[in-house]
């Protein structure tokens, strides 16, 4: 596993260079927050990466839920489901483990 301390991070602990992201980095970032990534987490994280790659856009919380609903199904865009996966804030931590910038509302 890549040691996190060689990766440049911003003041919020997010990757400074998303080019340094890989799955091992995502797992290490989550582990640091005490979270073990499961396939359900990965589904959301990969969705975030694909969405960002295609649209160069970071949705806010409301749009995030809508976009997930549209792509992965209504049950997965709901707050209940997302908060169970990322208890400290789905938008913030899905972005963090996806190696993307911190969204404005999460600072």
């Amino acid at each position, binding site marked *: 596993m890549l040691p996190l301390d060689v990766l440049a991070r911003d003041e919020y602990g997010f990757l400074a260079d998303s080019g340094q992201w890989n799955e091992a980095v995502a797992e290490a970032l989550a582990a640091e927050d005490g979270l073990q990534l499961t396939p359900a987490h990965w589904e959301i994280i990969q969705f975030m990466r694909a969405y960002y790659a295609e649209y160069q856009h970071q949705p806010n919380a409301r749009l995030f839920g809508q976009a997930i609903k549209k792509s992965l199904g209504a049950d997965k865009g709901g707050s209940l489901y997302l908060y169970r996966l990322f208890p400290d804030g789905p938008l913030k931590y899905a972005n963090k483990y996806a190696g993307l910038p911190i969204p*404005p*509302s999460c600072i």
Partner: protein
Amino acid sequence: MKISIQINASPYQHQAADSAWHFIQAALVAGHQIYRVFFYHDGIYNALRDSRPPGDERDIVKRWSALQAEHGIDLVVCVSSAQRRGLLEQSVARKVGGYEAALADGFRIAGLGLLMEAIIDADRHICFGS
């Protein structure tokens, strides 16, 4: 009638804040309700606490604060517009900068959801500037 207002331009650089303020005064006199004033784009600069215009000029920021104090009008600054331009919420300013927020009295920082609510609930939504 419920009227909501959106300000898109900075004070002093554009007349928008003046036009909106005079409009709001007239609307209140006519008995209308000002549902909310939403500050977007460079409009967020209307909420800078440390604005200190020369004494012989109108004080746009103080005028907004007074409007809130006297009429209870909800003054909302868009969070993402504000962060991009260097205006943070109190708790965020303390957390990331270790200083007090520069937000003037009577304003609050919130998300676009409050603009949506204003558009949906008010009878009219008027944009000023740029």
